[in-house]
């Protein structure tokens, strides 16, 4: 075929496409979280579900910390430091799993209400559930990236997979930065 001169077939251009695609996906996905956020304030104005503050704080710290390690991982990758990269990404992954367990295995179990108990239940479970599902996909993505890196798929110059996982992970983190106060801090206990 005669399109060797076509810039649109270069790696660089495709990378650009991928970035556009990822960001558009995130914009779209953010819409769901915005919807949930609004729902929460419509159904429970001025109130919040009764939750365990300690657990809430712990998981939040875990998630924030994981974002930091994700950032480190990307930097290491840019410097071509593969070992450090793998260490950081594993840390991220583990923190992510702790967050998941904290929410699903602890907070869900000790909550005073089930999903069917009023608006508190409905809102709490749908918001954390939706977010946890995203964290889960994020964890899978991280594991996948980790695995690929062991196979030597990524180089200093070309590591779109790492970048994508990082952006996605930060996005999940940002969502939680809104969800945490919405669930744990704002309003009086219902």
């Amino acid at each position, binding site marked *: 075929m005669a399109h060797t001169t076509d*810039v649109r077939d270069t790696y660089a251009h495709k990378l650009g496409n991928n970035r556009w695609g990822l960001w558009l996906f995130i914009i779209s996905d953010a819409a769901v979280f915005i919807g949930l956020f609004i729902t929460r304030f419509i159904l429970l104005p001025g109130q919040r579900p009764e939750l365990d503050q300690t657990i809430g704080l712990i998981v939040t710290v875990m998630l924030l910390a994981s974002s930091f390690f994700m950032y480190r991982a990307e930097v290491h990758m840019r410097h071509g430091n593969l070992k450090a990269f793998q260490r950081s990404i594993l840390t991220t992954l583990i923190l992510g799993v702790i967050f998941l367990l904290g929410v699903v295995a602890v907070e869900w179990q000790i909550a005073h209400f089930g999903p069917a108990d009023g608006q508190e239940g409905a809102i709490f479970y749908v918001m954390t559930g939706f977010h946890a599902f995203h964290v889960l996909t994020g964890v899978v993505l991280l594991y996948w990236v980790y695995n690929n890196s062991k196979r030597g798929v990524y180089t200093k110059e070309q590591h779109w997979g790492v970048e994508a996982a990082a952006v996605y992970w930060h996005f999940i983190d940002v969502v939680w930065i809104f969800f945490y106060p919405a669930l744990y801090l704002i309003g009086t206990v219902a």
Partner: protein
Amino acid sequence: MDKTLVGLVINRFLLVLLVSLLLVVAISELGFRLQVLSGDTDRLPQDVVLVIPEGTAERVAQGEEVPAIPEEMTFVVGDVLVVRNEDSVGHELGPVLVAPGGTASLPMEQAEHFALACSFQPSRYLGLEVREASTLSVRILAIVYAVPPTLVMFFIYSLAIWPLRRDDQAPPANPAQA
């Protein structure tokens, strides 16, 4: 992206925002005035004066109606009902007592429909209806809803009338062409 383009877009955006805000506020106020003329509760809270005329007690005692006093009154939240007693005896309205010649006031704090025991009605009750007023906050909310579509539309057509850049109207969104 190229800096000057962003700057141009922001400038245009702010300008159009101003224009749409002015337009919407003007329309909204016009509509609001029209509603006020129709005598609705779409108004700002105010003091409502209720005068108890002389001789009310006697009429009530005979079971007659007191034409000057309505049986039902409608308020908006924030209204204050001011009762002025021009009768020769004291009257009571729910929690307040009004001495002859005196005044008392009763603020309407929340939207509800209630009846107050009173001594100046043959039925012994005054029905009060308190509603949410279409007050400033509602009007602002209305403006908040109406500005974005106006803004979007003006912004978009402004691009047709006054292109951001004279030479090539369109930003080269495809970096490959830069």
